[in-house]
């Protein structure tokens, strides 16, 4: 089996900041907007280098989404930045009408998604955003797994014409994807070859899936691990090819099982190749205050949870 290691931990939001900074230097049409969270979104370099292309909106996310939609009229490519909660639920109707239905080329970039936001608690820990965004016709939904992938995705979405939701997080996590790997929207990345169980993971759960595969391997279970960074459009083919080998699947995400990656995978299986599936996801609940590690343990979103679900799903074959 392939060995994945890391030499440092970095936050995915810094990958966004680095990607945005690079876009500032290479694409004169890229503009950035923020609703009073510049530091949290790591937008400082872009702003320092391109002050005229940055719009500080203040604490007014609805206005930010509308202004972003308007900026596309005239050829700009707006990147909005705020927490995932304020990027989606707070502004759902603005995104729905002024961006998605209007077909505007806006990149909604959302940090601090999920439980790993930590101590701020449930008001800020959105676990419903993937569902909200994937339901909007025409919206691309991406959840990246580490610094390198987030940077690559940030660069890639500037070249895609249409609305995109890019979801990333707050804590420092292992950097294990290759630097400068090209990001292809909608194309899953096969990380580990296996025959007993498929593990499809997104975001922070991808590293946990690799850790789980290591433990399972030591116990004689071989796991096929797929990094699904794009939840919509979903790479159906990658999922079906893997399940054709393994006959069962575990989906893993930092999100409610309702509306998340797991449900999208279930649909693909139901239509093509029904197979046992287990969900590593939150169980229709809000989060709470705590450290990211404590929360991921308590809510069953780490490698231990994936191992347990993998054994359970194999038993159902």
């Amino acid at each position, binding site marked *: 089996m392939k060995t994945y290691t890391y030499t440092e931990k970095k936050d995915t939001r810094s990958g966004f900041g680095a990607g945005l900074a690079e876009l500032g230097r290479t694409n004169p049409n890229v503009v950035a907007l923020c609703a009073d969270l510049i530091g949290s979104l790591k937008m400082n370099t872009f702003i320092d280098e391109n002050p005229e292309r940055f719009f500080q909106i*203040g604490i007014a996310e609805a*206005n930010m989404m509308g*202004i972003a939609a*308007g900026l596309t*009229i005239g050829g700009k490519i707006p990147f909005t930045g705020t927490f995932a909660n304020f990027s989606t639920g707070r502004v759902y109707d603005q995104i729905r009408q002024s961006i998605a239905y*209007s077909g505007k080329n806006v990149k909604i970039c959302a940090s601090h998604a999920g439980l790993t936001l930590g101590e701020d608690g449930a008001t800020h820990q959105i676990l419903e955003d993937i569902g909200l965004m994937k339901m909007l016709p025409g919206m691309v939904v991406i959840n990246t797994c580490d610094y390198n992938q987030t940077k690559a995705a940030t660069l890639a979405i500037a070249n895609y014409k249409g609305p995109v939701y890019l979801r990333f997080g707050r804590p420092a996590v292992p950097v294990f994807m290759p630097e400068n790997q090209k990001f292809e929207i909608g194309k899953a990345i096969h990380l580990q070859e296996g025959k007993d169980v498929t593990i499809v993971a997104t975001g922070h759960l991808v590293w946990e899936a690799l850790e789980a595969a290591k433990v399972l391997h030591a116990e004689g279970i071989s796991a096929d691990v797929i990094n699904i960074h794009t939840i919509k459009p979903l790479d159906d083919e990658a999922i079906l090819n893997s399940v054709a080998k393994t006959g069962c699947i575990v989906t893993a995400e930092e999100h409610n099982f309702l509306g998340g990656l797991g449900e999208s995978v279930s649909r693909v299986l139901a239509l093509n190749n029904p197979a046992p599936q287990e969900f590593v996801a939150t169980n229709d609940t809000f989060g709470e205050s705590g450290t990211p590690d404590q929360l991921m343990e308590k809510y069953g979103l780490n490698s231990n949870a994936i191992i347990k679900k993998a054994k359970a799903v194999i038993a159902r074959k």
Partner: protein
Amino acid sequence: MTNTQHLKDLTTQVRRDILRMVHKVNSGHPGGSLGCAEFFVTLYSELMQRNEGFNMDGNGEDLFFLSNGHISPVYYSVLARSGYFDIDELNTFRLINSRLQGHPTTHEGLPGIRIASGSLGQGMSVALGAAQAKKLNGDKHLIYSLHGDGELQEGQNWEAIMYASAKKVDNLISTIDLNGQQIDGSTDTVLPMGNIRDKFEAFGWIVIDIENGNDIDTIRAGMAEAKSNTGKGKPVCVLLKTVMGNGVDFMMHTHAWHGKAPNDEQLAIGLAQNPETLGDY
């Protein structure tokens, strides 16, 4: 400047279009549409500098955004009669497979429309973005927007109104249709909004009053004053006093025709009060 009589004739024809469109499908919003007919006609016939044809980016021309999208009948009629699409297409208003959706949208590719509107309160933010894109592009043309007065009850407007002056967006003229009516009754009975002029001024806007928003010469003079106030570091607001249902006597001065279509008999009366001028679609 266009001949005033021609604009009056065009307004009469637009009123006929509005009545016939909503009558045919027994749905739509004639009241606010009729109230804004003179404004739309003047805006598209002589106020805006427009390029030939339609290009979404709209570089090198003035742009208009309709925030209160339910008055789509007047918007569609004036767009068609300004050359954006054939007037025969007005026949398809609100029908299945039409580009003329109940509320305006870019989704079906109707020329002249740059944003979907209908869910209220979103248009000023979009107009601000387009205005700031013009500034980035070094394009000196203006952005116009129209909003209902009841629509100001939506909070997003006040985010936008605060932002516009803070960021000195002075290439924007936002017009408020002050007809004093909304679905459930007069704005004063539903949710009194106090002095709207004072509110805009307190938020740092230049405010121009158009006392008779159903008179073309008055609109012309007021909008010229508004235009002369652009480029001065402040956004410009026009308070356009109109009569809902204007030009059809039984529809005037009431909220009853906000979102209701006339029956056959009522249509006949309305059309008789507005004889054909430039030819029906």
